[in-house]
């Protein structure tokens, strides 16, 4: 019964998904593009923060280690929605305070930059834990051998630790990427025009809720299944030459 009603409704409203202006398809695709851009930026920023955090947690001094522990604990204990609001206002305020103190005018920070910065800080906390575990799984003998060869810490990280830990880290990083793509939806709450927000606007204007939310769901699904496939391929490539883990 519901399925029938839903299907009938969907058939009559499918025209609304057309790309040309009477349809809202172009808006959805633009939202998807924004979502992907924010995810990529946040994931990249998270990787940078996470690599620094992981090395800091493993090889840093006691103060640095404790500070990083506070960072990862707090970020993982507070909902992303709350963090996004706090960081958004805090970052905007801080930038404007600095600008004002140097005699410049206030600026409005773009939603894209703010979204990337905020989600990147959140991703960084999770990436720290993933990469720390992956680095710890690198055989100690390999690192000791590199040290015995007189490699500097930077060279050691670049030639030995990072390539070896990649195969351990990729499954966790794949999960993080999926979380990044889905967390961009939270930016809809602060009114940024990514896919979920664009969908709600289109659905609200046309009252065709099922059509638009299902279409957006399909786009997200294609994104996540496609990138899952890419990560599986990358992992296979990173593991080449290593013995099979599963029997």
């Amino acid at each position, binding site marked *: 019964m*519901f399925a029938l*009603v*839903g299907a009938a409704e969907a058939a009559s409203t499918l025209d609304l998904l057309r790309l040309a202006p009477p349809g809202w398809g172009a808006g959805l695709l633009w939202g998807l593009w924004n979502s992907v851009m924010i995810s990529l930026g946040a994931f990249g920023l998270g990787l940078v923060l996470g690599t620094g955090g992981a090395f800091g947690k493993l090889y840093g001094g*006691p*103060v640095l280690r*404790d*500070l990083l522990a506070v960072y990862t604990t*707090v970020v*993982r*204990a*507070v*909902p*992303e*929605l*709350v*963090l996004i*609001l*706090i960081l958004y*206002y*805090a970052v905007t305020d801080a930038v404007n305070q600095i600008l004002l103190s140097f005699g410049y005018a206030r600026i409005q920070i773009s939603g894209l930059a703010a979204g990337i910065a905020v989600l990147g800080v959140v991703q960084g906390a999770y990436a720290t834990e993933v990469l720390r575990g992956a680095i710890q799984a690198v055989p100690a003998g390999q690192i000791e051998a590199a040290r015995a060869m007189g490699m500097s810490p930077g060279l050691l990280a670049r030639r030995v630790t990072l390539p070896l830990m990649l195969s351990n880290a990729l499954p966790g990083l794949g999960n993080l990427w*999926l979380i990044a793509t*889905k*967390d*961009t*939806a*939270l930016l*809809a*709450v602060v009114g940024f025009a990514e896919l*979920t927000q664009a*969908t*709600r606007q289109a*659905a*609200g204007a046309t*009252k065709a*809720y*099922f059509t638009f*939310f*299902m279409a*957006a*769901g399909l786009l*997200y*699904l294609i994104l*996540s*299944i496609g990138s899952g496939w890419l990560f599986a391929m990358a992992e296979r490539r990173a593991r080449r030459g290593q013995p099979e883990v599963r029997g």
Partner: protein
Amino acid sequence: MMLFTRAFWQPHRIIMALIVLGIVIWSAATLRWDWLPKYLPQAVQGIWRTIWLMLASLVLGMMLAIPLGLAQAVGPWFLAWPARAFCTVIRGTPLLLQLWLLYYGLGSLFPQIPWIRQSDLWPILRQAWPYGLLALTLSFAGYEGEVMRGAFKSVPKGQLEAAKAMGMPRFTMLRRIWLPQAVHRVLPTLGGETVLQLKATPLVATITVVDIYAVASRVRQDTFLTYEPLLLLAVVYMAITGLIVLLFRWFEARLPSRVA
């Protein structure tokens, strides 16, 4: 507790604790907290609603996750395929989208159907929280169903064969051997999943359910304060998370960790 040992209180940690204390005193003294007494009853009710939503969706979601995991692990294809599709769709789309699909979609569909409007359930279906609870439950079931699939598969075959050799009926086998061992394997990850579920609850504020997040938003609208309600909100969530972590630690310590 590690917190009360001498090894924990190294000099740099004492300094850090003092800095944190200083920040707390500074924010108590200079930020505005005069709105707090007025909104306290609402806040308590909001916290209660958050916890209630989390617990209800955990229990209902787990009850759905067990058949989902079982169907994927050993079910025939006509059960395994839909279960796998369900888990993929739930895990592949944002919870916010699912929530809005259910609330706006079903919410606009139901009033058009006469027998639903006339049924006794209508006063409940007109409110927002059933849709929030449904979305949270389905989401948890999707994630946990995947975990349960792995757990069911990881129970050693010998255990099940032994039960079969004893002539146990299939359902007794599930109840006495398969399910307890699978749940035992899931327990260490369940604490983390519970925290994730807590962090998902503020999304229901976007469909007008008044949880603690919605109360904080209302304070922000009424008083034009930016940081104070948000900071309090963060502290509340951290406190609940700490409570969950302690509870699971206590719970795990009471369970035997060695499985045959």
